[in-house]
C-alpha cells in the first residue's frame, strides 16, 4: 500500500531543512501517533522476534519457556518449509519481473499524447481499488473449468477443451502468478509514470533533434532519470509479493498438493491452524532475514552499476 515510499526512497537529494529546535509543543503533537506505534507496531515486532525463541503455543495452560535456537534447528530440517520457501521465491520473482516490464510499457504509453489517455489512466488503476479477496474471486470465475471465460475462449478458438487451471499440478502456480501480476500493475504503473513525468522533456527533444532513435532516447535520457523510481518500486514489489497472502489464499488455499503454498500461507497455517506460535514466529524471522539479504545484494549491485554507468 505505501507505494509512495517508493518515490521517497528514490529521490536522493534532500533539500536543506530548517533545523528548528523541537519545543515541548512538538512532543504534544508527536505522542498521539508515537504511543500506538510503540505499543502496536514496534513492541509486537520485538515480541514476535522473542517468541521465535520460545515454545509458545495457542491455548496451552503451562507457561511458555525459552528454548533457545531449537525452533531454528527444527526449521533447518523442515523440508516442507523450504519447499514452500522455494515456491515463494519463484512466485515473488515470477510476479515482480513481468509486473515491472508490463507496467513500464503501460507507463510509457500513458506518457504519450494519445487520445482517450484519461480514460486509459482511470481504467488502468481499477485493480488497485479492488479488495484482494474480490480479485481472487474474479479470477476464479475466469479460470473456472466450465463456466470460465478462459476455457470458453480456448474452445471457441478450437485449441482444445481447456483445463482446470487452478487445480492442475503444472498450471496452478503459473495461473496464480498471472493474477499476481495483474493485481500489482496499477501501483507499479503509477509510480513509473510519476517518475517519467519528472524526466526532463527538453533533454528528450534535444536528443531527438540529434537524431537519436526511440530506443537510444529511452536508454540515454529516460532510463537514467527513471532508474531510482524503478529500483525502489521493484524492491518494494518484491517485498510485497513475497509477503503476499490473500490472493493465493482465495485462489487455491495453497493447493494443489502445496504447489502454490507461499511461505505466508505456510506460516499462517502453522500459527493459526496448528497453534505453533513460536515455530511460526521463527519462520517469520527467517523470511525477514533472507529477504533483507536478497534485497541488500540486489540494491547494492544496482546502485554500484549506476555509479559505473
Amino acid at each position, binding site marked *: *500500500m505505501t507505494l*509512495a*515510499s517508493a*518515490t521517497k526512497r*528514490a*529521490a536522493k537529494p534532500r*533539500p536543506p531543512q530548517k533545523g*528548528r*529546535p*523541537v519545543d515541548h509543543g*512538538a512532543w504534544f*503533537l*508527536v505522542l498521539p*501517533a*508515537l504511543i*500506538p*506505534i510503540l505499543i502496536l*507496531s514496534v*513492541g509486537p*515486532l520485538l515480541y514476535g522476534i522473542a517468541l521465535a525463541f520460545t515454545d509458545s503455543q495457542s491455548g496451552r495452560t503451562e507457561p511458555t519457556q525459552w528454548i533457545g535456537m531449537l525452533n531454528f534447528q527444527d526449521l533447518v530440517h523442515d523440508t516442507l518449509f523450504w519447499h514452500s520457501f522455494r515456491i515463494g521465491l519463484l512466485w515473488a520473482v515470477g510476479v515482480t519481473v513481468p509486473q515491472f516490464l508490463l507496467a513500464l510499457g*503501460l507507463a510509457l504509453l*500513458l506518457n*504519450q499524447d494519445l487520445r482517450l489517455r484519461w480514460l486509459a489512466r*482511470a*481504467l488502468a*488503476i*481499477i485493480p488497485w*481499488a*479492488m*479488495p*484482494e*479477496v*474480490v*480479485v481472487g*474471486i*474474479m*479470477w476464479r*470465475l*475466469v479460470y*473456472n473449468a*466450465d*463456466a470460465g*471465460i478462459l476455457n470458453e475462449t480456448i474452445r471457441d478458438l478450437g485449441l482444445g477443451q481447456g483445463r482446470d487451471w487452478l487445480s492442475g499440478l503444472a498450471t496452478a502456480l503459473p495461473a496464480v502468478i498471472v493474477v499476481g501480476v*495483474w493485481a500489482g*500493475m496499477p501501483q507499479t504503473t*503509477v509510480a513509473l509514470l*510519476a517518475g517519467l*513525468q*519528472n524526466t526532463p522533456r527538453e533533454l*528528450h*527533444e534535444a536528443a531527438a533533434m540529434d537524431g537519436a532513435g526511440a530506443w537510444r532516447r529511452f536508454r540515454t535520457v529516460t532510463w537514467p532519470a527513471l532508474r531510482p523510481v524503478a529500483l525502489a518500486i521493484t524492491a518494494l514489489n518484491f517485498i510485497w509479493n513475497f509477503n503476499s*497472502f*490473500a490472493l493465493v489464499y482465495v485462489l487455491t488455499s495453497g493447493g494443489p498438493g502445496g504447489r502454490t503454498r507461499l511461505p*505466508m500461507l505456510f506460516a499462517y497455517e502453522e*500459527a493459526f491452524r496448528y497453534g505453533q*506460535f513460536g515455530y511460526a514466529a521463527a519462520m*517469520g524471522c527467517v*523470511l*525477514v532475514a533472507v529477504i533483507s539479504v536478497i*534485497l541488500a545484494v540486489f540494491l547494492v549491485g544496482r546502485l554500484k552499476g549506476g555509479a559505473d554507468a
Partner: protein
Amino acid sequence: MKTGKGVRAGQYFALLAYLVFLAFPFLWLISTAFKPARELGSLHPTWIPKDPTLANFRQAFDEQPLLDAALNSLVAAVGAALIAVLIATPMAYIMARHRTRLAKAATGWVVVSQAFPFVLLIIPLFLVLKSLRLINSVPGLIMVYVVWALPFALWMLVGYVRAVPAELEEAAAVDGAGKARTLVSITAPLLAPGIVATALFAFISAWNEFFFALILLKTPEKQTLPVVLTHFLGAEGVADLGPLAAAAFLATLPSLVVFAIIQKRITGGMLAGAVKS
C-alpha cells in the same frame, strides 16, 4: 516531436491490449453476477447474459449476512481512517518541519514496517489483543488497522505539509499570531484537501483488508466483508458462482467510488512527494 503514423497505430493497439487485459476479469465478474443459474451451468458461457437476472443478489443476501458484514466493514474502515489521520497529521507536521532524531526514526520505521511479514506482527498482536479481550471485536480490529495504515498516511501527509510553504507560517508569526493560531488558521486549511485524500485512502485500505480480519474476527456476525465473501467459496472450491459474483461485485463498489474521487490526488500527491523530498 513528430510520431510516425505506423508507430501511433502500434501504440493505440498496445494500449488497447493493456486495457483488455486489465478490464476483462472485472467485466466477467459483472457478467457472471447477472446470469441465472441455468446459464452458469451451461458449457458455453457468453459475455452478455442471455437472461439477465437479479436473483443472484437476492440469494447472496439470503446465504450470508452481507448487511452485517458491510456494517462491520464500514465501522472498521471509517474508524481506522479517522483515527489514523487524526494522530498522523500532527506527527507528519513535525516530521516535515523539524529535522530531529525522532523524525528520522519515524521515517525509518515507515520504511522498515513495509519489509516485515505480517505473520511476524500478527502473532504477538493476537496474543496482546487476546489478553485485552479484544479478539473478535471490531474495536480491536480498528486498533490494528490504525497502526497498519499509519506508515502510508504519514508518508502522504509529510508530502502535503512540505507543499505548504513554511514562509506563510513565518509571516503569520511576524504578524503576531501564536503557534497554535498559525497552525489552525493558516496551515490546517491548506492541508485539508491532503488530509481528506489521506483519510479516504486509509478507508479504502481498511475496507479491502483481509489478513488481519481473517485472524482477529472469529464469529460470522463480527466479520467484515472480505472475510464473509470467502464463506461463499465453501469447501474444496465448490462455489455457487452467481451469488459469489454478485456479492463480490457489491463489496467492490464502495472502494471504486472512493478511489474515483481521490484518484487524481493520489497520483498528484505522489508526484509532489517525489519532487519535494
